[in-house]
């Protein structure tokens, strides 16, 4: 993805999903190469020179980038949930221990003699 971004000379920005559908729609309506649309979308300059990358090159890289960031987000969320569950378990254990200590302290106060 970085390689393609470098060749185009612009950072890769989202949202890409709707943009990609604009390219596909363009292809279906006109039979033209969506690379033209792609170039305009990213360079915002319709008079720019030949497209440095093709639709066939960009799409796999873009989709792979979406998939990778999706995984990172979901894994991050899962780890967060796991961590908070573990924290809740530790807190519950601490409460139980505290209750046990209090009970034992109470028993000790009553004495056994």
């Amino acid at each position, binding site marked *: 993805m970085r390689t393609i971004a470098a060749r185009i000379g612009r950072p890769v920005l989202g949202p890409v999903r709707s943009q990609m559908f604009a390219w596909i729609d363009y292809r279906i309506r006109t039979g033209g190469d969506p690379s033209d649309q792609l170039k305009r979308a990213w360079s915002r300059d319709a008079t720019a020179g030949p497209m440095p990358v093709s639709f*066939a090159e960009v*799409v796999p890289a873009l989709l*792979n980038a979406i*998939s990778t960031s*999706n995984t990172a987000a*979901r894994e991050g969320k*899962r780890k967060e*949930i796991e961590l908070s569950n573990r924290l809740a378990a530790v807190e519950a254990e601490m409460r139980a221990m505290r209750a046990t200590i209090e009970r034992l302290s109470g028993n000790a106060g009553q004495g056994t003699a």
Partner: protein
Amino acid sequence: MMSERPAPFRIALYSGVYVNRDGIGGALTCRLDMLERLRRNGVPVEAVVFCRGSDIPDPRVRVLRNVADLLLDPFFMAADLHSFEFGVHYDLFDAIFVLPSGAAALGTYHNITPPELVAEDQRHAVMESFRQRYNLFETGHVVCVSEFNRRDLLDIGFPAERMSVVPCPTPATRLVRLSDKLAKRKAGPIEFLFVGRFVRAKGVVELLEAADRLASESLPPFRLTLVFNRSFSDPKLLAWLDERMRRGPERRWLRLVPSATDAELTAQYAAADCFVIPSHHEGFCIPVIEALSAGCQVVAADAGNLPFILDGLGKLVPVGDAAGIADAMRAVLRELHEARQSGRMPMLGTDRGALPVDAWAQAVDLHLRGFSREVFEIGFAAALRASLAAAGREIPDWLLPGNFEARAGIGAAEAA
């Protein structure tokens, strides 16, 4: 007045490759067969398989160069439902992020071999597969081909209510009855059989070690047959095996059947007394069902889906434990030999206890019903409905419960 034909319901099916004699390929073929039967029965349904490679000559299969080609295919844009098979990373699966709005998405999870069990040069692909597995979250529903796979997805937080277990269909009727097999085979070595790729992950090293142990003991004669595909096996292990066969005493009890045809494989199951599968990982394991269908006792490692697919109808041994495999094989060997000598039917050692042959056969029949074509198709139809509902789509009449079974030619008794 001309009657208007209803718009066809279009299903796009996806896989990395679609090839013969492959678990994922088999699942795709079953789906295509079902959709074709529905079409012949008047259901307006169209299906296309998109993949990156195929050896199956079928006009419905479209082999693409990459995911960009897919996005430009008119069927991709028009499909009502997109069904993705997933077991290994493939770029077409990333199209799930750009499905046309309103299209339903269904996933089928076949599991991923852990990186430590694959060759060094395949590790990157495996790690990519684990990453891409999260794409399944974008589907409305996921079919897991085994309970083991369902638990695998639960572990990464996939919601239980969006999953179902629908096993791949396997032979509905028995190829060989165990009682017939025992009645016919009164002499000769006790036959053990392994079927799978010759790679470490299948436990072949400890299997040969276990057989070595048996060969060194004073036991009745036995033979171990290894059926494997050379092109999907580990070249280094194959060289080691070939060398052993050239020089070692294994020639007395070991037989190699590389690249068997379907008919040869069926004959091997029919000739075997006991199927041994010491795999370290299995997402489903069709050979266990094939072996049970062919009246083979089964010894399996307690790994992956093996405990679920065997369901107590054989003996589980600790994974990677050559001594454990040898113990289980020895018990089969002794009991079959003693039963032959005394002219009685053997008792079959299983994790449900020692079972008489008839009781085992009944339990196996009952178990195999869960792997029938009908169970598979009913489960797949339910998954289609769930993914359509998740996408807020109307469920076509032919897919409704009852209607579907009638149109797919599934009888009431089979549906029950």
